[in-house]
């Protein structure tokens, strides 16, 4: 019955209760939607980084990571490794890459780039670069023509080149001799990360292997795409155990900034909501204190007729929790529906596209929140409700029933 009385009590002064409920609603609505935008941005960045830049897992000769030189390849174990990857059901696709640094020069300008020598069909199963080439921007290493290259839009602008322009790549072969070749641009891609676009070019592995004087079975990097992102740790462990002489890293280890961002966002979102709830908690304390002050005589009567302190505390705590939860549920529902709506339509911030792309973010955001966030938030709201009731409840418990029942 105390549960029912507590619920009825919060509607005694409708205006006052609605004011605090509205404050909680707006606070939670704003907090939930802001969190969804932040989470969506980060998730999107991670998804794009994994699908276009890092893949889920990368495997290297450990010396290559230390020295970045072309002679440190995966060679002896390559066949075994590929067979193992083909046998793992979690693996959606894999691609071996010849990877090295070079100078790219056009008739107008030159810059340092990272060259990826890939098997186009294999690479399509792992990264989405081929899908980042617009209809009028060429193709992804299609056809039989030799020495084709796919460059990023930012690099094309920097080198002042267009589709079908030639650029000259200069680099050292495996023996340390300076070499180079002219490549014709067959496709220009554009991701949401202009820094990536400016740095990375893709050529056929067969075209570049002979220039590097490399065996066609050798490569510096093998990238793996999994069916489900949460299988990363298991597959990484399996590959590390199977190939202890190779360095097997997951996407968080490959790009620590992205990894840290993923971990920090989870913590930050809860801290952000905790700050909002803490501020609202003081509003709840104030409302509850006014309630206690107004009901001094009634609380005295309840104590007099034999309602023990535990029950009085429970009643006040429930009132505080009901106030918090009512506002929170409405606020969370509004936040959820706006998140759901904008997760389909996206939030278009194209006017700030240049800035966003320079830091690797897509200017069209898709807010996102998972069920765990709402469950944790509900628990946090209940905790704040309980905490906010402690001080008013202590005041109520200190009342002398004999004096309280005669108070005006």
């Amino acid at each position, binding site marked *: *019955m105390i549960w029912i*009385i507590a619920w*009825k*009590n919060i*509607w*005694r002064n409708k205006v006052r209760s609605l004011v605090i409920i509205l404050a909680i609603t707006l606070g939670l609505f704003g907090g939930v939607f802001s969190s969804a935008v932040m989470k969506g941005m980060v998730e999107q960045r991670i998804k794009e980084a994994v699908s276009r830049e890092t893949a889920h897992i990368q495997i290297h000769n450990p010396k290559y990571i230390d020295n970045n030189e072309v002679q440190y390849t995966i060679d002896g174990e390559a066949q075994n490794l590929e067979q193992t990857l083909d046998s793992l059901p979690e693996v959606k696709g894999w691609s071996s890459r010849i990877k090295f640094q070079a100078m790219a020069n056009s008739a107008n300008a030159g810059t340092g780039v990272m060259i990826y020598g890939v098997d186009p069909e294999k690479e399509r199963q792992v990264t989405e670069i081929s899908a980042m080439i617009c209809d009028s921007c060429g193709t992804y290493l299609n056809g039989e023509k030799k020495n084709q290259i796919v460059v990023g839009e930012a690099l094309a602008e920097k080198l002042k080149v267009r589709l079908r322009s030639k650029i000259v790549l200069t680099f050292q072969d495996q023996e340390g001799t300076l070499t180079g070749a002219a490549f014709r641009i067959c496709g220009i891609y554009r991701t949401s990360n202009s820094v990536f676009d400016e740095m990375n070019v893709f050529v056929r592995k067969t075209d570049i292997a002979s220039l590097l004087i490399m065996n066609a079975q050798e490569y510096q990097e093998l990238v793996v795409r999994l069916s489900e992102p949460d299988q990363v740790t298991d597959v990484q462990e399996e590959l590390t155990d199977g190939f202890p002489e190779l360095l097997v890293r997951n996407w968080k280890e490959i790009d620590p900034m992205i990894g840290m961002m993923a971990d920090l966002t989870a913590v930050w979102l809860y801290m952000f909501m905790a700050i909002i709830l803490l501020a609202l908690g003081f509003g709840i304390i104030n409302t509850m204190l006014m309630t206690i002050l107004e009901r001094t*005589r*009634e609380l*005295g*009567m*309840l*104590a*007099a*007729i*034999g*309602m*023990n*302190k535990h*029950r009085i505390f429970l009643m006040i705590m429930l009132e505080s929790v009901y106030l918090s939860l009512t506002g929170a549920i409405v606020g969370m529902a509004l936040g959820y529906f706006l998140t759901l709506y904008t997760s389909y339509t996206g939030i278009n911030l194209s006017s700030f596209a240049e800035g966003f792309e320079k830091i690797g973010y897509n200017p069209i955001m898709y807010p996102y929140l998972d069920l765990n966030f709402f469950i944790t938030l509900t628990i946090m709201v209940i905790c704040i409700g309980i905490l906010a009731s402690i001080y008013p409840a202590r005041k109520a418990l200190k009342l*002398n*029933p*004999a004096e309280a*029942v*005669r108070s005006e």
Partner: protein
Amino acid sequence: MNIIEIKDLKKIYNDSEVAVHAVNGVDLSFKQGEFAAIVGPSGSGKTTLLNLIGGLDVPSEGSIRIDGVNIGELSSRKLINFRLNNIGFVFQSYNLIPVLTAYENVEFIMSLQGYDKDKRHSRTVELLKSVGLGDRLNSRPNKLSGGEQQRVAVARALASKPKFILADEPTANLDSKSTSNLLDIMEKLNREENITFIFSTHDQRVVNKARRVIQVEDGKVISDEAIQSP
């Protein structure tokens, strides 16, 4: 047998520079079925005496035994529980819970005692009928007159099956018709069900109905008189 025995009861307030002896050496006893009024001018100590008997205040000296239990020796927790199961209260300002109906106000005290819903229901309806409010079960206090609210308060006080009921100036806020009605109901309960009522009052109409009148002045009992029924 006495249900209440008070021995050399004192209550001294030291809040101000001069100690106030609100109750100053009272010896009293009450038997089952009494209909007693404690009377006296304002500040005479009658409300303090009633609060001490009800366990709402702690004596400075002396003892109060209810059915042999010295309530001054009970812990705060046990005292609350003792009040719940042994003492009924009727307050001057009715003190009903405004968000509950008459029915729920009466039922509430039995839910605190842990009675099941069926038992609570039958007793609540029976009690409200006995105070003439059988047709107002679902009315909230703001829809009831002062007299009706005080009758709900009496039903509530009876709900826990207490050993006695303490009523602190129960008619102070009532008009004469409501006062007469309320007194008739309490007198009927007293005569027919042998329920003990102890009032503090300065209302002559209550004094006229009482079968024992205890006069209090300066914290002392100056007269204790049994009145013969007409």
